[in-house]
């Protein structure tokens, strides 16, 4: 985005107002569903005429901003399992670094197809995801909430009076999923949240609320490492990135607040419909 006539003008003919609205809405919806806003933002930008190479770093800016926006609330609520996030993030970050390094040599058509497939896959996973697997333990109280020292387990509040214990399982398979998520994040800039959250819930059997919060934390780390690479490659247009960041910070804060009131399974089902539309359009229009 450059400057003309005293006002911001989006690069590659994308209107700055539309860019800000897209970043705000996708960050809100992304935070609500625990998928990361980039999975929506990047395809929308590509469909609006922006190249995938330019859209990818903006997607990661949106993810990093959404992660930061949700951090204070999620830290105070103690719903993030940081030990799980950091353990799995090592695989994701290495894969994201590799993905970002080779993304410059991947053609736009290939990226568009990949994004289309990724959107359809995310829609499928989001639609089939289960509700509550772990049940509340009546012996647990507010003082038990938080992650346990020395293990990948903890307790989270399902409601004001219900507290649920959990323990991450099948760690090696989970790590493979996290590496795949990191590779896609580095290559396409859509963040791997739509892979990480289902992997954490369905493979590692961590409750969806903890999984979504932990993913929101860890995608911030993955996007940080990929953004460093994009910055070095000169692919970050600062004014575009700043506009997306401002909108995504607001959207991420709104999404984190709304997540407290709305049931995530319902949000994900609606999100799945949107993702199917985006995925099909990307595959048809490439």
């Amino acid at each position, binding site marked *: 985005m450059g400057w003309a006539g005293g006002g911001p003008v989006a690069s590659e003919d994308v209107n700055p107002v539309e860019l800000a609205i897209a970043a705000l809405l996708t960050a809100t919806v992304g935070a609500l569903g625990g998928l990361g806003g980039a999975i929506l933002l990047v395809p929308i930008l590509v469909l609006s005429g922006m190249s995938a190479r330019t859209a990818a770093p903006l997607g990661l800016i949106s993810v990093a901003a959404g992660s930061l926006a949700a951090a204070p609330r999620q*830290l105070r609520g103690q719903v993030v399992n940081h030990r799980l996030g950091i353990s799995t993030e090592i695989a994701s970050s290495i894969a994201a670094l590799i993905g970002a390094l080779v993304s410059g040599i991947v053609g736009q058509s290939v990226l568009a197809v990949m994004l289309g497939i990724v959107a359809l896959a995310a829609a499928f996973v989001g639609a089939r995801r289960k509700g509550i697997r772990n049940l509340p333990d009546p012996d647990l109280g507010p003082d038990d909430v938080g992650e346990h020292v020395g293990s990948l387990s903890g307790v989270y509040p399902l409601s004001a009076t219900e507290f649920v214990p959990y323990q991450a399982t099948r760690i090696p398979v989970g790590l493979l999923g996290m590496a795949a998520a990191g590779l896609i994040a580095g290559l396409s800039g859509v963040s791997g949240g739509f892979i990480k959250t289902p992997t954490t819930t369905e493979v590692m059997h961590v409750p969806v609320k903890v999984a979504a919060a932990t993913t929101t934390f860890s995608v911030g780390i993955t996007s940080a490492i990929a953004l460093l690479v994009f*910055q070095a490659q000169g692919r970050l247009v600062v004014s575009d990135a700043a506009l997306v960041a401002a909108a995504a910070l607001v959207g991420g804060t709104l999404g984190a607040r709304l997540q407290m009131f709305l049931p995530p399974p319902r949000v994900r089902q609606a999100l799945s419909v949107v993702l199917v539309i985006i995925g099909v359009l990307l595959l048809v229009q490439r």
Partner: protein
Amino acid sequence: MNDLRRLASLMQIALVAAFALALGGAFLPGRTGAILGGICIGILIGAPIVRVAWLTVDWARIGDRRFALLGLALLSVLAGGAMVSFLR
């Protein structure tokens, strides 16, 4: 105030600062806007790294050595990534 609450307060400050800088980066023309936007991006990149470093130190302090080492390993990966990106 426990360590997670302190970290939450730090993230809150980073959030407010990043938002103000992002607005400046998006709407102020020329070099000023570019600098403010650049600092905003720096905060977005730095915040999760600071968070990991904070947790690593905290876990080392309370004797959770295994996860402190994992935190250190992740920080090493991030540092390696930064080095690779700047050397290219």
